[in-house]
């Protein structure tokens, strides 16, 4: 409420100076797209179930891959009510402070003035040849996991889609930390010292099964988008930290259907892709209140009483969550590297949070290869510790290889708690110390 009041004052103040008022209105529209009303699409109502018998009603609100799954009877979608996923006020304030100061550089991957907050709040235009790139920056510098967070535990299941067999279960801990672009957790706006000017760290630790136990992955992403990530891998049986070549970033990570580059929707450099904005529309996305979903008591139970999201549908490849109508930006990303294993990704970005709940990936021939779903949970209906964090919680995922009829599913326990992801965890030395 305080946040809304403050913003109202800002908007009111901005009204007095027309040149600024438009920008502030853009900010208001960007962070609160449903303030003046929820999306309305004929035939789509909260509470309804979309399945193979009525899929036609959803042909304009589901992406092509998901529509095919529904049409084939592989998945039924429960439609929920559209809810506002308000991001943390500190992030919105940081955006406000930099309004009008951010601009793209001459090359893709260059940006000026974006040191915190959402870089571009204006509505993207199909007439702007760099609109897709701006949206990609909004994702990269989004409030995705806030300033830091952890997923612990994090279950990945490799599933045969045809016979529903779970072939393999990996149990991870994931940690994320923004070294820069910090708005809420101390220190703000950056952690120092930071001699190489790192933007973000991702640290992954495998807990089970035994053959990959103690495998660790550390990714350092630089503030300079033109500089390649440094990635390190620790293999438990070798007890050594090894540098990763970027070829492994597009590899099947530990045999899953997921590349490192797929993490969080897209986990690469802006400059690695050619970005094209394809339009804005109202679509169904898997965004929900975790505590109201079907939960899986078999995979995980703990003293917090927390349970992970259940999976079902064909092969157990689909999260049993509700989908809601959202304002969505469709963005196409074509790899710059002609040897990249994919021809393009089509991202469906949530306009309010700039998370990427849906992505379809196409192989080098241009055929649909993978359907990537990341369910977003509202932080106020999740673990008590996440309430009020303003982080759209990555809460479930499904990567379906439509050609191999195989999938990898993910079940999360996401925690926005800075004590779980100190800077010391994102060092090469920590990998050695944490490994046996």
């Amino acid at each position, binding site marked *: 409420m305080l946040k809304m009041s403050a913003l109202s004052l800002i908007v009111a103040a901005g009204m007095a100076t027309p040149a600024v008022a438009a920008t502030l209105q853009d900010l208001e529209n960007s962070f609160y797209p449903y303030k003046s009303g929820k999306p309305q699409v004929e035939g789509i109502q909260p509470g309804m179930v979309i399945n193979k018998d009525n899929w036609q009603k959803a042909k304009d609100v589901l992406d092509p891959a998901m529509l095919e799954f529904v049409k084939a009877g592989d998945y039924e979608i429960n439609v929920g009510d559209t809810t506002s996923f308000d991001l943390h006020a500190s992030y919105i304030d940081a955006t406000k402070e930099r309004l009008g100061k951010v601009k793209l550089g001459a090359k893709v991957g260059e940006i000026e003035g974006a040191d915190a907050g959402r870089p571009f709040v204006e509505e993207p235009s199909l007439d702007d040849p760099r609109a897709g790139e701006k949206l990609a920056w909004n994702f990269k510098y989004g409030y995705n996991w806030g300033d830091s967070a952890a997923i612990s535990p994090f279950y990945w299941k490799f599933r045969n889609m045809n016979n529903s067999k779970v072939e*393999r279960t990996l149990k991870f801990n994931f940690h994320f930390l923004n070294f820069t672009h910090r708005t809420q957790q101390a220190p703000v706006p950056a952690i120092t010292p930071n001699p190489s000017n790192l933007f973000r760290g991702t640290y992954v630790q495998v807990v089970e099964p035994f053959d990959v136990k103690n495998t660790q992955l550390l990714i350092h992403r630089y503030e300079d988008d033109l500089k390649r990530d440094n990635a390190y891998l620790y293999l438990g049986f070798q007890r050594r930290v090894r540098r990763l*070549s970027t*070829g*492994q970033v597009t590899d099947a990570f530990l045999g899953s259907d997921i590349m490192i580059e797929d993490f969080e929707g897209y986990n690469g450099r802006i400059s690695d892709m050619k970005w094209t904005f394809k339009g804005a529309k109202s679509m169904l996305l898997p965004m929900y209140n975790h505590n109201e979903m079907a939960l899986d008591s078999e995979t995980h139970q703990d003293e917090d009483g927390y349970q992970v999201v259940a999976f079902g549908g064909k092969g157990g490849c689909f999260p049993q969550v509700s989908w809601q109508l959202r304002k969505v930006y469709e963005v196409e990303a074509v790899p710059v590297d002609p040897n990249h294993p994919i021809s393009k990704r089509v991202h469906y970005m949530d306009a309010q949070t700039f998370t990427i709940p849906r992505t379809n990936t196409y192989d080098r021939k241009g055929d649909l290869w993978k359907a990537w779903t990341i369910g977003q949970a509202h932080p106020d209906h999740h673990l008590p510790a996440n309430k009020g964090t303003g982080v759209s919680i990555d809460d479930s995922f499904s990567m379906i290889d439509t050609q191999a009829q195989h999938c990898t599913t993910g079940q999360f326990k996401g925690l926005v708690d800075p004590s779980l992801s100190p800077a010391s965890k994102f060092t090469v030395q920590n990998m050695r110390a944490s490994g046996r």
Partner: protein
Amino acid sequence: MTKKITMSFNKLAAGVVVAIGMSQAATVSAAETQWAGFVENATYYREGRGISKFRNTAQAEFLKPLESSGAWTDVTLNGVLRATYDGVYDLNDDEFGKDATEPYLGSNWHPQGSATGGPFLSAGVPFPCDNDPTLCNNLDGYMDHDEDDARFPDFNDELDFLREFYIDATRNLDNGDQLSFRIGKQQVVWGRTDLFRVLDVINPVDYSRHSIYDELEDIRIPQWIAQAEWRMGPTGTFDDSNLAVVWNFDKFRPSNLGTCGQAYRILDAGCFFSSSMNLNLLPGAAFPGGANPYGSAVPIIHDVEDPDWALDNTQLGVKWEGVYGDLTFSLNALHYRQQLPSLHFRPLAPGLPIPATDGVFDIKFPRVNLVGGSIDYYSQAMDAVWRLETTYTHGEELPRDTDGHKETDMLRYVIGFDKNQLIPALNETRAFLISAQLFGQHILDYETDMPDFEDNWIGTLLVKGWWMSDRLSPQLIVAHDFRAGATAIAPSVEWLPTDNWKLTLGANFKTGGDETFDWSVNNGAGATPNDYEPLARFSNGPIGVANQEDEIQLTVRYSF
């Protein structure tokens, strides 16, 4: 036999009881203790010899968080317990074990030649502590295992069933740095190499388990070590900086090369050490004064000078490592003892070139000072990682023909290249790992009578692929010793039918072992030169000497 097996099972039972007891105690006191482990059978079949390994292993690992207090955090008790029974000594006792005699020394890797038999070298005595009390006494403290020791290698006076047992603790400093301590029985890994070691020399290695081919993780001999790290994290210059001090306060243990009679004895050193020179067979005219001073065969080894525990005999190392931009690096220094034996000749009398009557050599383990460093560099242009590692040592001793040994400085280095390459024709979704290494060694004070090369190189290549969600993984390892002309080829396929089961089917083929090295003792007696024994074992290296150890290998593991 029955008595021996009973006694051995008693040892095994004792170990298991201790392991289970520890686990229960830990579980009772801390519910969150994490356990994992496996049971495994490894059965290897060697061409011409039959079963060469029937190793059954049970391993359990635990991590028990302890209560932290004050500035101390992440306090944990860690352990790895291992029990091994190798049934090859019961299933194939004609070929391996205390009764597995050989027709001549080195019959397992070369033709007889002229230096074995007659007045020269006898065949090695298998498991001398089961067969020859004198030899056993001479070898006391090193390579003196009896058959039960080989059958149950984890149960001994050094408590090797306790693979690791240490406490970790970290103290957060006011400036954000951390002091971390790890104290107990542990492995400390320096370096970045596979198969062969350059910097990774803090722990000795048990080559009797499977020569150089098992993961170092499984064959390093854990030591009682105190390690302190000052983790500075990012500094004004470095992205990561860490200073570590390693104090190996354990009683010195050398690497285990495998006792004569074991299936794996690197360089066949174990049989050489348990052989004798039959100088008593020579006529008196062959000696100064016209009389043969030897009333019986002369054992090759007279004594092992195994350093007692003393503060002065402990080993100390320092490592500074960090990250600087695209470089990860380390600078290392270590004072330790040579882990391979140095043979010191014992003359019958000062200045005489013939050995003492009670043994030809004493085994010593000289002190060594090492400085070295390593670098990883990611080349964006090649999308590959280069690894460099080098050491310079002072104090090592190498064997030579005419004087037993010589101290020499040594330079070793390795250049490694790792690349993940997608080969769409074979696998469209998963890149192959291609890892090549070139190890180099330069002997600075080289002598022509050293059975080694002034410069030599060993190249290794690993190609590994993954299919079926990484559940099927074939790989090929090739190692080639350039100067020895010896090659090892080890293809294998790993299959994970479930998260718990793993089957590995592999093979291991070697060529080489053709190098000879003139033994001056043999030449002096007027025999044909170009001998295999005893010196060519060094020049042929671990691959060449194993030239008749072609094997098919099956390993089945259930992990939990």
